[in-house]
């Protein structure tokens, strides 16, 4: 009895469920979203001749006719595919990569530019997300701490001129690029800039925006008071002592010249044409006659009282720039991009500004690169990181940046734009027509220097002793070489 009853109840429940499902299907289901057009498949029966081999009984091969259904015609409806983005030149970018970019002192002035470029990048490499942070005065400290904590950014804006790329690359913290980037991509950049800061034969940076030092001239002092002409500004650094003496005698103002105290070895190489270390890298040689002659030039200027000593040995470009911007110096060597600072701080001086090419050092090399983008060696997304660094430094991004501020592209193609050919009107633009020629000749001629920071500190002390403590230049440099060689021996 019970079993029968159970069976009937089960049947009733099943029937009710079926009714409910049918009713729901009939009227309760919401209308489905419009499905994409499905591929239409037209099928027909064809005859395919096949050779069948009997499994067990080995007899002669037999040709049989087997009816089989195959797809004879297929119409596929697809979304139109966009043409490949010409700016996406790095292959195998990791899907859904999320990478971080650190820039150095670009916010807030260039927020829009950076954000727009990131948006273009994310469009060129769909699925990659970029988080951007700008770090300023504490950039180096922040970066070192981030590396120590294992949380360094994937893509880092490093200064080439300050030697940051080689500093981090030597420690194995940056990603070598040579075998990860095709020759076509390498060819986008000036060879001299691509090959800057080579560490153990490898390149670790995409050259980014470049600076070009010019001499900003305060015509009020230089021309009106001292009676000098722009075309007479020295073409080489050897002309500076005489110029400073003339300006001091005629105007009473001191020359606003700065030694690069953070990297005096590099300054010796470019300005003095000095071989700072032997070819085998085992002995320092910055006490050669060329080095002594270079240092003596500055010693003579200090003794003659023609240079501002506090600017001469400051490690902050801003100190010299401030002196110039205050209207108390005849000239100052800086990038045209910093003319905006002069205009902002002393608009009255802006109308008296002129710019001439910076004097060339005894090495004859015009200069070296300014900024670069490198990828973190420990990044989880090496290809995406390389892609971002490359994207920011590609011809279009560089051109866009150059239109915002007086910086210069590392990519020859950018200079084909009429923007660079246009006749300069503002003093900031005065270097534009000659920029390609100058930037193309930039080269890093400073050899790899072991214990670089320590040796530079030793050289700084030697230079200061000669400048301010009456120690003869030769003795100061020879003593410094001994100390530096002792470091090598450790």
């Amino acid at each position, binding site marked *: 009895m019970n079993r029968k009853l159970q069976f009937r109840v089960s049947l009733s429940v099943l029937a009710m469920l079926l009714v409910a499902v049918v009713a729901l299907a009939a009227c309760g289901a919401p209308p489905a979203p419009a499905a994409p057009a499905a591929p239409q498949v037209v099928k027909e029966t064809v005859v395919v001749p096949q050779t069948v081999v009997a499994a067990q009984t080995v007899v002669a091969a037999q040709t049989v006719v087997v009816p089989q259904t195959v797809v004879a015609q297929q119409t596929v409806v697809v979304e139109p595919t966009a043409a490949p983005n010409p700016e996406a030149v790095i292959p195998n970018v990791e899907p859904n990569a999320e990478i971080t970019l650190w820039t150095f002192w670009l916010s807030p002035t260039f927020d829009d530019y950076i954000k727009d470029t990131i948006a273009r990048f994310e469009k060129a490499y769909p699925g990659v997300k970029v988080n951007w942070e700008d770090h300023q005065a504490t950039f180096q400290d922040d970066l070192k701490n981030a*590396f120590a904590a294992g949380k360094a950014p994937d893509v880092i804006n490093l200064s080439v001129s300050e030697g940051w790329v080689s500093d981090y690359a030597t420690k194995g913290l940056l990603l070598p690029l040579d075998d990860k980037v095709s020759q076509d991509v390498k060819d986008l950049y000036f060879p001299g800039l691509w090959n800057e800061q080579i560490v153990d034969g490898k390149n670790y940076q995409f050259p980014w925006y470049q600076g070009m030092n010019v001499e900003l001239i305060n015509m009020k002092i230089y021309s009106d008071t001292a009676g000098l002409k722009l075309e007479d500004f020295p073409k080489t650094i050897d002309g500076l002592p005489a110029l400073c003496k003339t300006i001091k005698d005629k105007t009473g103002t001191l020359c606003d010249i700065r030694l690069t105290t953070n990297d005096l070895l590099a300054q010796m190489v470019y300005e003095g044409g000095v071989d700072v270390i032997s070819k085998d890298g085992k002995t320092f040689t910055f006490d050669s006659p060329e080095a002594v002659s270079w240092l003596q030039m500055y010693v003579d200027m200090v003794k003659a009282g023609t240079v501002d000593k506090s*600017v001469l040995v400051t490690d902050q470009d801003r100190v010299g720039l401030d002196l110039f911007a205050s209207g108390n110096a005849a000239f100052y060597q800086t990038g045209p991009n910093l003319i905006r600072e002069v205009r902002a701080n002393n608009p009255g001086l802006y109308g008296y500004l002129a710019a001439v090419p910076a004097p060339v050092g005894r090495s004859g090399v015009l200069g070296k690169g300014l900024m670069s983008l490198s990828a973190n060696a420990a990044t989880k997304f090496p290809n995406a990181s390389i892609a971002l660094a490359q994207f920011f430094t590609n011809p279009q991004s560089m051109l866009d940046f150059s239109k915002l501020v007086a910086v210069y592209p590392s990519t020859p193609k950018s200079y084909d734009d009429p923007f660079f050919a246009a006749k300069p009107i503002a003093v900031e633009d005065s270097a534009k027509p000659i920029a390609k020629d100058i930037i193309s000749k930039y080269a890093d001629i400073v050899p790899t220097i072991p214990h670089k920071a320590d040796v530079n500190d030793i050289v700084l002390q030697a230079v200061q002793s000669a400048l301010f403590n009456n120690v003869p230049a030769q003795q100061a440099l020879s003593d410094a070489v001994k100390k530096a060689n002792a470091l090598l021996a450790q």
Partner: protein
Amino acid sequence: MPKKLNLTPYLFLAPALLVIGVFILYPILAVIYYSFTEYDIVTAPVWIGLKNYQQLWNDEVFWLALRNSFVYLLVTPILIVLCILLAIAVNRKLPGINAFRAIYYVPVISGSIAVGYAWRMLFDTNGLINGALLSLGLIKESIQWLAEPALTLPIAMALTIWLGLGYYMMIFLAGLQNIPEELYDAALIDGCNGIQKHWYVSVPGLRPQITFVAVISALAALEVFNEIYTLTGGLGGILNSGVTMVFYLWKQAFKLQHAGYASAIAMALLVITLLFSIVNIRSLERGTEQE
């Protein structure tokens, strides 16, 4: 019956102990460890034993920095004398005296970095001081104050004194206001003049504040950094003329990336300041007991 462990006090102490452990104890222990290593912050430290301390012993700049730090201690007696005089001056019921007191306190709330840069502008070759001296005919050519090694420390010390004047003055002012008026009356009856009144009443009455200011300002002087950094543009002065212990520590750690060596300097600084504070407090306490 075993005594039941009462956890309540430990729970109350826990937050403070946690903060002290994370932000004081751990860094001290880490610095002790790093002082025996070669460490550049970005890569892992390598154990080198006592090498950093040997290097420290033979390092001329370290001894120069130590000497400069002790020279810097001169700010302490100058601050004490100036602040007591100032506190006595403003401890009078005059119209607008509160505004006067507030003005002296402005440098304290201005921040040493901002004040340091302001002073740097004052002492620039084309700064206000040279401008004033030139216009008064006292000099014929601008003095390059910040490029004279002999002037680096004195200018920095003057800045420290100016910065601390208002703060320490307030401490002495509070002390003066706690001295009973009757003592001054008694001193006047005993025939003291205005100066003697303060010498025999105010100064002894301010003994606890003097001890406090002496210890605090001396420690601050031994650890001076901001003034040197801003005035010398991060160089420490020409020929290391302004390099003090903490500045040298910073330079080694963050400029030359020798964090291990900088940790050894920090240990030396810890020992020196500890010894100095003990001697300082003992001698000042002995003076109090003798009175």
